[in-house]
């Protein structure tokens, strides 16, 4: 309870607004262009990598916290950040290993849970 009382509402509001805007941009892409979900996700992750590499995205992360890291651009930022950090330490090998190292938790979890879900769940028709 003590944790909940200490929640930083300003930080939370910034997070809410930034991630909301990122999602609205995605929604405009869905509705105005004929891009498929896969393409939109690719655009987001690549944009995140590039903005991360240019050192721009970290300002958004500083400002909005999870509002910038949870959207898929944040996944891209994570990849870029990991690569650069590792490249600093290990050179060329780091450029290859750093990105996946930094984002391995998410990828592994998605693969693992996907596999588990396929074992126990069945697809159902959308009612609407």
């Amino acid at each position, binding site marked *: 309870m003590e944790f909940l009382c200490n929640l930083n509402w300003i930080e939370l509001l910034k997070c809410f607004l930034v991630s909301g805007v990122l999602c609205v941009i*995605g929604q405009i892409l*869905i509705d105005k262009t004929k891009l498929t*979900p896969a393409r939109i996700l690719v655009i987001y992750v690549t944009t995140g990598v590039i903005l991360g590499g240019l050192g721009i995205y970290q300002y958004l992360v500083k400002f909005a916290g999870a509002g910038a890291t*949870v959207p898929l651009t944040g996944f891209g930022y994570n*990849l*870029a950040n990991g690569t650069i950090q590792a490249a600093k330490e290990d*050179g060329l090998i780091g450029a290859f290993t750093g990105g996946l190292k930094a984002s391995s938790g998410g990828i592994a979890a998605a693969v693992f849970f996907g596999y588990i879900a396929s074992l126990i769940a069945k697809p159902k028709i959308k009612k609407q």
Partner: protein
Amino acid sequence: MDNPLNTQKEYQEYVNQKSPNSPILKNCFNAFWVGGLICSIGQIIMDFCLYKGIDKDISGTIVSIVLIAISAILTGLNIFNKIGKFAGAGSLIPITGFANSIVAPSMEYKSEGYIMGVGAKMFTVAGPVLVYGISTSIIVGILYLLINAAV
């Protein structure tokens, strides 16, 4: 031909004007608050981890894993597609959409077996994300090294 629309271009323009548009304002509003809510949940998990004294990087990973797990469970319970229909990009853009794009095909293609069905088709939507994300990040790393070497 007695088609009153003579050229393909003319017909395509006519079709564009005839086709109903998506209710973009409503869609954007839903995307905004659902997307914001998902990421705010992420922020609360993050704050909780930090509050418990967990390292910042590890906290970020915990946020991803928890959101992915929630998304996988909702997909397995046949709920995520309803959220997705309502929220559009609001549930697609956060890491929940990435998780859903892996869980949904692995459930669907289970009927083609665990190797070529689940194992291979799992990445039909998410595969490109990994390919382009990882490849771009390696290029970024190499460029970083080249620029630093030159300076």
